């Protein structure tokens, strides 16, 4: 198992931190030819509520829900109203300057390309 992007941590489990409760969004991580793709489910978050930061080899995604205006009475509720937060440790092969993030219908997709130097390269053999 490649250790890439395996560490995950949500704010609320960190001891001694202020009690800001967050939801850990479910995520898929895949390796493609050119790098990694990370998908995280954050329904209720638009582009404006999204924050993606890279610091010290750690990627953090933070999604703030767009406030839903409900005037009426809550009859039944399953969804959690907290914001989303999750951190991932980045593999050193990832070119952090080239990370691209998009969010579509509450699904965040991050493309994390590998640095040119570590991409597999075909070497021609001269006979």
């Amino acid at each position, binding site marked *: *198992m*490649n250790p*890439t*992007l*395996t560490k995950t941590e949500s704010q609320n489990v960190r001891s001694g931190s202020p009690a800001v409760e967050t939801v850990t969004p*479910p*995520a*898929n*991580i*895949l*390796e*493609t030819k050119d790098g*990694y*793709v990370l*998908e995280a*489910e*954050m*329904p*209720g*978050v*638009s582009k404006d509520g999204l924050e993606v930061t890279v610091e010290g080899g750690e990627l953090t995604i933070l999604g703030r829900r*767009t406030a*839903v205006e*409900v*005037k*009426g*009475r*809550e*009859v*039944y*509720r*399953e*969804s*959690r109203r907290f914001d989303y937060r999750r951190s991932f440790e980045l593999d050193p092969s990832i070119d952090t300057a080239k990370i691209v993030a998009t969010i*579509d*219908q*509450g*699904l965040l997709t991050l493309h994390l390309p590998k640095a040119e130097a570590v991409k597999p390269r075909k070497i021609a053999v001269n006979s």
Partner: protein
Amino acid sequence: MSSLRSELDRLFDLSWSGRDSGLFGGWTPSLDVFDEKDHFVVTAELPGMKNEEIDLSFENGVLSISGERKQSKENKEGETFRSERYFGKFQRSVTLPAAVDSSKITASYKDGILTVTLPKSEAAKPKQIAVNVA
């Protein structure tokens, strides 16, 4: 005996929810219901879907939301390191607590949240009754 019974009931429930969310590849999107005086609002968290993948129906006071979320090309072809997202079919139903005018139901899908607005039928709307005190 009664505690054993409830334990069995609980196990039965769990096996069903397990079946819904895991083995058959489906999932259980979370659902909220609000009562807003002259209408109900039902919201469902359905991240990463397309409008045409969501089906809505209303029959005998029951709203049903179903659909199928398909895997993206990357999910099919890439090597998976972490897989927490569910793909496949889902189905949720909710019985509305009062009569609804089914011809006026509307739905929208934004930021991965489906919002269904169901206007109450005239008979079900709360009415203000004036009380005259002599």
